């Protein structure tokens, strides 16, 4: 048992039971999975990516590259979870990953034996013959061996949430610097957010033994946090990682609300993504200790000295009875003395410096280096080369490695700022180009002493708050250690054995040498060729070592060698949090039509049309296929009368003295002379001359139009018109507003449409053919006084109207229409029947207005007026859009009426080869026409207008369709338009 008898910030009064690889263990509240395992004498926690080497913890934080586990089970199984950050909870289950059959015996550890063949980039040089073997043989093997943890493909059962926070000052990291800054700003009344990734604020103070004034670090922290919590203007976010610095002071944060629980409380999220809008931000993210590379430096039990110290000080867990420390700086000695104080035996401090200071209670081997280690599943001993060249073996179960500290500069570089080298601490510190509004303090700035952190935090807070007009007083800060940094950079011990730089990806010093030898010398080439720094720690524990080795090889300075780019997220973020609530059926909002409730009662089948749900057809008892229902709806409508909810079409209210002149520029055809009480079909072009959208404009008054758009283009068309209004013709008197949702609109179509409407339109309104002819419109009342709008327009080709009432009455109106229409066997029809009838009539819709077709292609070339300047007119005249053999909209009728013609089929001459060279056009829309008792289609054919009566193939090799079709007019039904004028 390696739990120390006393100390640590754990609640010894309570025991927590958890499982790792099926084995039961006990820990305490305050433990992490890693500390609890170490306390239970477990050092082996994982396997490396490539060589499947046995691994234990390297760190005590979120930068952990080795101790990755699969946490939880079922839909909640979470791969690659760092044991060092998992807060222990009762019933926790974790499994080791990337090992088979077991963590202790992993078959793929064979890779370790073959390592000499599996050096950096070896795979680029082989596996090329025979070509077909790559997908079939080599790659499957590689893929199975690669990867880390696995996910279940079950849906994640937990909820995620999103939110938005605003502050004057965002403090990133709640160590001494962050807490001093928060205290300064909080007392000044600034709106402060303090975010820390740990579940206990305090940062390194939790892992150190030195005092602040008379208090322990933990006590001082508790006192400050308590004061901050009492301030209404301060928000404390623990378990919260600021993962990215985005433009203009926006930060991304993830709060792990429920990850320390077995399952989240009902309706409560697992995690929350916060988008934080800050005026200023102060980065107090501290620093990370880096390892030193030496032969077999990756064994379980070998970790950074600060991690070893943290496990002992914060968690009272020592990985072994006897340990040693390998260091190139004074901080390693602090680890040794802390361990001694905790009663852990320190075999020796191996210090690479000839002038290493002495240490009370432990032997210091000055000018010595660790040359090798032993212990396959856990460290047994280390071999040391002494200053005098002799070598000595130390039997230790753990080794703390102190290679110096790297300021945590990641967030300072998220907007492509580059860090600069600081010789005094032999590390990169934040550069001059910081994200807008960001400052840095404490260890993150390279100021490593607690004294410097406290004062740096407070002073920086005062300085940047002054920028935004908030004056803050300097807080009374406690006395704290102010030890100088004494380091003699030392990166790796020479030798022929493998010395690890990137632990997870198994990149060794040898690999960097090979990359250099093959001219992959730029840091980016080094990274990409060897995968150095591409592990889940994003190089936090590996990049510096790699750079240093490359610098040595090229003879350049480390600064000149440079770093790779730091990218968000700072630590990996779960996809669930980034998606928030927008999952499953809530992925996007749903828009319902006014008749939705009624249609549901009718048993309608619904279809997604953009965000809308529309009735697709209304099946009746006994109808076996959708075709039966749709054919019935079409025939009934054409025979008597049908009703369809067309509310989804965009409606834009256009008012103003210049409304007509405005529309005259928006539409390619003329609108200036449209009479009040009349409707006109309009075609809009994009400025590039391609058809954009079509619809109708109804003139309700001299200065008032109602414009309709297709369902899909309602938003873009409104945007387009606002652009024209505000940017192109700012002095036109035009006002625009969308009224799509305000009016429930129904198409009433069929020979009996007028008779039906006459039953509900109030008598004072004459809608006879003479008084209210085709393309008339007017404001009327129905059902005894309800205001309504009536448009005599037809998409179906029948005598038809569209009637609109305030949306809240839409449900009542459709019920009334059905009731009043009983005597005519009125039939509700859905989007399918609507589509069939518009194809029968040859009306263009979305499939024809596909953004690639011109007015001329659509057979409306003559509509483009050259008498006026309308949007798109000029560019529509370009030669490429006006070829004699250009595409034209035509109709297609199969020689065999029962033969299906498929939308998406291409047109070729009979007998022509199926090649692109023979491609004459394509079918855009097709359906079965119950009226013509034949399949029919429309589409675009080269010089189609000159090919009436010709017979071609409509071929769809994709689906195996190949139908002989006759080229006909697209207007299959009532080409003269007698019905709609009836």
């Amino acid at each position, binding site marked *: 048992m390696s739990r120390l008898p006393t100390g640590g910030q754990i609640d010894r009064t309570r025991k927590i039971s958890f499982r790792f690889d099926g084995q039961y263990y006990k820990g305490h509240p305050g433990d992490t999975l890693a500390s609890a395992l170490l306390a239970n004498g477990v050092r082996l926690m994982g396997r490396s990516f490539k060589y499947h080497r046995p691994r234990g913890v390297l760190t005590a934080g979120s930068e952990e590259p080795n101790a990755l586990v699969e946490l939880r089970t079922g839909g909640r199984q979470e791969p690659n979870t760092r044991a060092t950050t998992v807060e222990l909870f009762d019933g926790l289950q974790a499994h080791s990953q990337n090992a088979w059959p077991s963590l202790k015996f992993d078959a793929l550890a064979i890779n370790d034996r073959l390592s000499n063949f599996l050096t950096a980039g070896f795979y680029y040089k082989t596996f090329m013959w025979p070509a077909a073997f790559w997908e079939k043989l080599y790659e499957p093997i590689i893929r199975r061996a690669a990867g880390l943890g696995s996910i279940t493909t079950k849906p994640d059962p937990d909820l995620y949430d999103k939110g938005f926070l605003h502050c004057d000052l965002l403090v990133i990291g709640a160590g001494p610097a962050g807490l001093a800054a928060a205290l300064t700003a909080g007392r000044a009344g600034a709106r402060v957010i303090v975010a820390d990734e740990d579940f206990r604020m305090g940062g390194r103070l939790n892992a150190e033994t030195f005092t602040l004034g008379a208090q322990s670090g933990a006590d001082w922290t508790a006192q400050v946090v308590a004061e901050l919590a009492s301030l209404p203007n301060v928000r404390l976010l623990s378990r919260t990682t600021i993962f990215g610095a985005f433009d203009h002071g926006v930060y991304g944060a993830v709060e792990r609300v429920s990850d320390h629980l077995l399952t989240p409380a009902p309706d409560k999220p697992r995690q929350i993504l916060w988008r934080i809008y800050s005026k200023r931000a102060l980065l107090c993210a501290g620093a990370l200790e880096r390892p030193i590379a030496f032969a077999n430096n990756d064994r379980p039990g070998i970790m950074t000295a600060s991690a070893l110290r943290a496990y002992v000080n914060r968690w009272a867990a020592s990985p072994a009875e006897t340990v040693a420390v390998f260091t190139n700086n004074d901080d390693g000695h602090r680890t040794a003395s802390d361990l001694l104080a905790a009663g852990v035996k320190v075999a020796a401090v191996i210090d690479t410096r000839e002038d290493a200071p002495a240490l009370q209670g432990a032997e210091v081997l000055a000018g010595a280096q660790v040359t090798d280690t032993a212990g396959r599943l856990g460290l047994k001993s280390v071999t040391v080369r002494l200053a005098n060249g002799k070598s000595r073996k130390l039997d230790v179960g753990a080794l703390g490695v102190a290679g110096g500290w790297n300021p945590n500069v990641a967030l300072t570089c998220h907007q492509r700022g580059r860090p600069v080298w600081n010789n005094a601490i032999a590390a990169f510190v934040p550069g001059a180009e910081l994200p807008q509004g960001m400052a840095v303090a404490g260890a993150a700035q390279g100021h490593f002493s607690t004294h410097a952190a406290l004062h740096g935090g407070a002073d920086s807070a005062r300085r940047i708050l002054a920028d935004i007009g908030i004056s803050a007083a300097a807080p009374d800060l406690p006395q704290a250690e102010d030890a100088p940094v004494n380091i003699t950079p030392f990166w790796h011990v020479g030798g022929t054995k493998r010395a690890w730089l990137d632990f997870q990806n198994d990149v060794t010093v040898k690999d960097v040498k090979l990359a250099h030898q093959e001219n992959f010398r730029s840091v980016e080439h080094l990274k990409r060729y060897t995968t150095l720094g591409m592990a889940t720690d994003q190089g936090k524990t590996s990049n510096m070592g790699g750079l240093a080795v490359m610098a040595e090889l090229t003879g350049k300075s480390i600064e000149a060698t440079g770093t790779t780019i730091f990218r968000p997220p700072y630590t990996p973020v779960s996809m669930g949090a980034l998606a928030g609530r927008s999952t499953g059926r809530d992925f996007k909002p749903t828009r319902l039509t006014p008749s939705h409730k009624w249609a549901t009662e009718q048993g309608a089948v619904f279809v997604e049309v953009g965000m809308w749900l529309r009735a697709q057809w209304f099946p009746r008892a006994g109808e076996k296929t959708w075709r039966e229902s749709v054919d019935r709806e079409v025939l009934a409508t054409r025979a008597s009368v049908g009703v369809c909810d067309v509310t989804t079409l965009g409606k834009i209210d256009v008012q103003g003295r210049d409304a007509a002149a405005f529309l005259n520029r928006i539409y390619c055809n003329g609108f200036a002379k449209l009479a009040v009480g009349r409707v006109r079909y309009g075609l809009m072009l994009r400025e590039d001359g391609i058809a954009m959208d079509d619809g109708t404009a109804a003139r309700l008054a001299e200065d008032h139009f109602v414009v309709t758009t297709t369902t899909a283009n309602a938003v873009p068309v409104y945007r387009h018109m606002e652009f024209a209004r505000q940017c192109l013709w700012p002095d036109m008197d035009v006002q625009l507003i969308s009224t799509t949702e305000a009016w429930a609109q129904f198409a009433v179509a069929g020979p009996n449409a007028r008779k039906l409407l006459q039953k509900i339109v109030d008598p004072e309104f004459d809608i006879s053919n003479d008084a209210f002819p085709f393309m008339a419109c007017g404001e009327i009342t129905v059902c005894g006084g309800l205001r309504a709008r009536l448009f005599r327009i037809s998409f179906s080709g029948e005598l038809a109207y569209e009637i609109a009432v305030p949306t809240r009455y839409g449900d009542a109106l459709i019920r009334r229409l059905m009731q009043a229409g009983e005597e005519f066997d009125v039939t509700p029809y859905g989007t399918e029947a609507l589509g069939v009838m518009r194809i029968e009539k040859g009306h263009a819709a*979305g499939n024809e207005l596909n953004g690639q077709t011109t007015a001329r292609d659509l057979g409306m070339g003559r509509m483009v007026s050259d008498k006026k300047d309308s949007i798109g007119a000029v560019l529509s005249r370009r030669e490429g859009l006006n070829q004699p053999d250009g595409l034209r909209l035509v109709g297609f009728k199969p020689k065999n009426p029962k033969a299906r013609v498929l939308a998406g089929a291409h047109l070729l001459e009979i007998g022509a080869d199926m090649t692109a060279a023979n491609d004459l056009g394509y079918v855009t829309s097709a359906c079965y026409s119950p009226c013509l008792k034949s399949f029919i289609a429309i589409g675009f054919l080269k010089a189609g207008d000159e090919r009436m009566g010709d017979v071609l193939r409509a071929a769809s090799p994709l689906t195996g369709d190949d139908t002989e079709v006759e080229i006909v007019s697209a207007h299959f039904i009532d080409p003269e338009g007698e019905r709609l004028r009836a």
Partner: protein
Amino acid sequence: MRYSGFRVIKEALSGHKGWTPAWRDPEPKPQYDIIIIGGGGHGLATAYYLAKEFSQHRIAVIEKGWIGGGNVGRNTTIIRSNYLLDGNEPFYEFSLKLWEGLEQDFNYNAMVSQRGILNLIHSDAQRDAYIRRGNAMLLNGADAELLSAEQVRREYPFLNFDDARFPIKGGLAQRRGGTVRHDAVAWGYARGADSRGVDIIQNCEVTGFRIENGQCKGVETSRGFIGAGKVGVAVAGNSSRVMAQAGMRLPIESHVLQAFVSEGLKPVLPGVITFGAGHFYCSQSDKGGLVFGGDIDGYNSYAQRGNLPVVEDVIEGGMALFPGLGRVRLLRMWGGVMDMSMDGSPIIDRTHIDGLYFNGGWCYGGFKATPASGWCFAHLLATDTPHPTAAAYRFDRFEKGRMIDEKGMGAQPNLH
């Protein structure tokens, strides 16, 4: 040096002492026959094919930073030839065929993996459009396959079929599509070109063109003037900046496209999938990371980084399609500069300046095009005639109204 399994074993047994540089770092010569500006995938491929297929000599590739540092080093690695329009499909199919023989051709394992690409269908109109596209692919000699929802479910059982806002109604598959180890493409072409005598000059920034009476004589660089008979520009992400030095304004805007990779996972995704009702496409790398992306941020940018709204939009799409992703972690996100042309299709053409040639405007489709782009640009540079499959990629198509607009979005680059 020729790479092979035997070579790897031999070197392993002799301490890897024999490996030589994959390419040299020569000093620039005063004069070349052909200079390619831009040591990205397209530039290196152009140089490689110029030397290998068009037996040109005295060729240099000039790169401002490190080779392969453009979009070939920063993309989602997908290859496919599932295009609709005649101007595009033959070119991308030519490219796919080159991918299929590439590794043997340049003796480098770029891990060309034809694991298939599947575009999901969520509406009838989308099916109609995909059928039209699939038929266009077949007519052009490519492969295409229309899948029913049930067939999709069999191949991707973990997608959201039962609780979806926009149900999956099928898919258009191209089995020959897939992914490639992107960096290796640059390195393979660089090594192949270098071994054929091409000078690859890194850390050499072009600062201007020397143009004398309508003729381009060479380039001014951070390492001095370098003369050339012909200069080919292939600088995706910098096209407007570089061509402005020749006094040209282009039908191009530069936008940022973000891409993402998750932590490594054991194999879960068999091929490449694209969501048809949101901005999300995804594949899984050989290392196990899910590599995915979505839509461009939508504003002009040279910053090579994006913002949160698009990150959230993309991952909302991912979760809507694949609800099991919730507990997977996003490891890294990055942004690349996309030279978005005004119709969404590229330009490979002469300029009005003799001896100055241009290759660009690849939007976010450049990676899959790398081999054919290199080949066709080499063809143009070597023969002064466009390669048949790239004949439509002309500058003047906008003036003449011969746009190649796959998406039908018109002259607004951020919509393509």
